């Protein structure tokens, strides 16, 4: 690796592979540093801002599965997020179901599902986020 001849210039004795690897490493390192700095200097936007939405129900054997998506609009991650869903169908007692999510990452989402006996398409489904813990 070290030739004992008169020294060529740095550019001449360094293979392209080394410059490429160094360049990529520099780009990635500056990327993570830059992103962290940008995020760190941005205004923090308080506690997690959680919202929950239902997707069209799917029939599974004798039950109906309602896929739910919990979104977090804040940068702060929420842990142990509790979601409650109440299905009010005509002519039947209301059904209440719960789901809990270990994490809903900041600016991210988590997916799960609620399982009802009645058909959610025939009734009104109320979803709410009941609470969370800080991770």
């Amino acid at each position: 690796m070290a030739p004992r001849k008169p020294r060529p210039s740095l550019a001449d004795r360094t293979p392209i592979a080394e410059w490429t690897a160094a360049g990529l490493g520099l780009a990635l390192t500056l990327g993570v540093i830059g992103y962290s700095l940008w995020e760190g200097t941005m205004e923090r936007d308080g506690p997690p801002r959680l919202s929950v939405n239902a997707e069209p129900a799917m029939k599974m054997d004798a039950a109906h599965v309602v896929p739910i998506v919990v979104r977090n609009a804040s940068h702060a991650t929420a842990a142990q997020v509790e979601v409650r869903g109440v299905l009010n169908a005509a002519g039947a007692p209301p059904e209440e179901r719960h789901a809990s999510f270990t994490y809903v990452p900041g600016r991210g989402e988590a997916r799960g599902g609620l399982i009802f006996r009645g058909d959610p398409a025939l009734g009104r489904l109320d979803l709410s986020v009941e609470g969370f813990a800080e991770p």
Partner: protein
Amino acid sequence: MKRPARAATPPAAEETYARGLARASAGALIFSFPLLMTMEMWAFGVHMDRVRLALFLVITLAVVFGLSRFAGFRDTTDLADDALDALAAVLVGYVISGLLLGVLGLFSGDTSLRDAIGMVAVQAAPASIGAVLANKQLQAGSKGRSREDRAGYLGQLFLMAAGALFFAFNVAPTEEMILISFKMTPWHALALIVASLLTLHALVFSVGFAGQEAHESHVRAFLHYTLAGYGAALSVSLYILWTFGRLDGGVSDTVRAVVVLGFPAALGAAVARLVV
């Protein structure tokens, strides 16, 4: 594994080969038992995305082959020989993982074949790496110049990436990885980046990578080994997180998780030189 004469295989050669296999098994055990005893790993074997698992197995095979080629001290340059060694190491990895998972009672009567295969496959990676390293490293009577001295820059970069892969893989499956990244603020992340770079650079210098005497300046070693190595560590972290399906959060969480996993990966990249 040492395979002396090509024409005849006298009993002594068979015995040497058997000893090589035993050594590889020991290496596989030592390198893989922490993960074999990690709960999340069993679960990953069951629910991991199968395409990602398949890709991971292919990459493992390539890494084991590369280690067989660049690591160790045996003076052969035979490509076929290295390929045979790599395949034997992978076999040992699978067998050891399967046996140990069985002994630990993790296969019950109702474990489906698909789940069992997944559980063994995901564990086979560290075991195979252990097998190939043990076999190369502990070979009795090995002498001569370390092959990695001749590996060239790309070979050394590969060794760093392999070290990063092994270290990152060892901690990536645990719940703690994501929990840590959730608890960190961006400022913690910045501190960890600096710590990773400093550690990597200190180890690059004190351990002395092959051909380092050519690096007359800190600046150059920093560019070509530390920065390149950290780049490799970050890329490997990203890949491992993707393999385990841990990139579902937003950009912030991804960056932070990559930085968190990049720390053990950087240590692995630095220590690669010691281990191989």
